[in-house]
């Protein structure tokens, strides 16, 4: 019974100051927010699941996409994102330590722990920006077919992925980036890719060691590699060169992957940014002694709940985008 019934005298029930379920008004409200926001995130991640199940036999293999670590060359899948996850968990720990210190009215400790939490958040958001930049810039480059599918290239003998620059020919041509000063009737044009479609196709034809890999997964769950003859035939279906990823084209494979990656990690990154701002505000309030005067540090606890929630969401994003 203690859990649902407030135990104050009857006449005080409607006078305010009551704490149903033992939670203050502010805490109850942050829990309302967290529950509804977790449903929002769940909706997004389930959408990702939908796209993935729909294209179950041609979905992107995450290990081939997120292979970079800053300052290191080569392919190291997983390591960097594991580091990011650890940073966020760590900043969750300093947050909960701040809450604990606040509970004991230790102003100095709370200040330091809040500072470390903000720092952890900034490192995380910086890492995510780097991850985005790498994803947008692209890796090997690919061609897009009429049906909007992606074809990539690899060496027939070693099975290693080939970047467009490894085999594309340089053919002098008249095609230049269209700029505003060259015409009044100006339609925007993005930067041209490093190679034209023709240059890539001629490059493939000239080098017998280049074969095409398509999105379709084989029975071992790897991308299907076509024979040399099939590869050359496949080139007839291509319409353009794709380098990197954006909301319309994606050199790694299905464009929905890029769309959902930008959307979900972006929405999470937005939450982290908001969390950092809230943490900074609370940090200064702790520093100025606002909560000391108020007599309790509940605000640290409330912003802490939000911060842990952001960490909680990342744990799921990490699993569904990088592991599964």
């Amino acid at each position, binding site marked *: 019974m203690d*859990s649902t019934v407030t135990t104050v005298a009857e006449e005080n029930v409607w006078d305010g100051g009551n704490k149903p379920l033992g939670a203050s008004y502010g805490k109850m409200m942050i829990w309302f927010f967290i529950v509804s926001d977790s449903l929002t995130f769940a909706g997004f991640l389930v959408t990702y699941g939908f796209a993935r199940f729909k294209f179950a036999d041609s979905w992107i293999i995450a290990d081939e996409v997120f292979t970079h670590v800053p300052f290191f060359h080569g392919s190291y899948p997983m390591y960097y994102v594991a580091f990011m996850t650890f940073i966020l*968990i760590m900043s969750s720990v300093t947050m909960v330590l701040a809450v604990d210190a606040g509970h004991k009215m230790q102003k100095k400790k709370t200040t330091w722990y809040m500072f470390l939490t903000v720092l952890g958040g900034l490192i995380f958001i910086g890492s995510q920006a780097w991850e985005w930049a790498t994803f947008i810039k692209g890796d090997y480059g690919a061609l897009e077919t009429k049906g909007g599918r992606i074809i990539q290239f690899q060496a027939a003998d070693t099975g290693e992925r080939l970047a467009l620059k490894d085999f594309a020919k340089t053919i002098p041509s008249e095609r230049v980036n269209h700029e505003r000063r060259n015409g009044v009737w100006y339609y925007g044009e993005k930067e041209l890719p490093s190679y034209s479609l023709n240059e890539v196709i001629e490059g493939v034809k000239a080098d017998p060691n280049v074969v095409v890999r398509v999105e379709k997964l084989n029975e071992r769950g790897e991308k299907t590699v076509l024979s040399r003859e099939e590869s050359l035939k496949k080139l007839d279906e291509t319409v353009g060169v794709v380098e990197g990823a954006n909301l319309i084209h994606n050199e790694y494979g299905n464009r929905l992957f890029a769309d959902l990656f930008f959307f979900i990690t972006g929405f999470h990154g937005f939450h982290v940014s908001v969390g950092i701002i809230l943490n900074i505000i609370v940090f200064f309030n702790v520093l100025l002694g606002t909560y000391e005067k108020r007599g309790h540090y509940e605000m640290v606890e409330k912003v802490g709940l939000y911060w842990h929630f952001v960490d909680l969401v990342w744990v799921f994003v990490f699993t569904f985008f990088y*592991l599964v």
Partner: protein
Amino acid sequence: MAEDQKLAIFRGYWKFKSNVHKIWGVLILLTLVTAVEVILGIIKPEVLVHSHFLGMKWLNWIFIILTIVKAYYIAWDFMHLRDEKTSLRRIIVWTGVFLISYMVFILLFEADYVHNVLKEGFIAWNF
């Protein structure tokens, strides 16, 4: 946070002297679980990749279960649901669990159906 804090995890098997100790203990646990996930993700054991359960690789089941384990400890110890009243905890957790399971079920089932339509129906989508 309720005044009296519960200072044990694993149903009382792992007890801590203070709340701060408990926090570090949970960090160790979370780091360990993440490390296991990353190691499995890098080596991808053949046995787990090529055996399936309910249409999903065993490896993926392991990842999802470990994720839920992590979520449990973040919610219970960092968000200190462990110290809240039982009814508040149930309101928060079960609301999400019911709605999200329903959504996962209905959408993934539909996605699988759409997949089969694209695969077997007379629709050219890869031309």
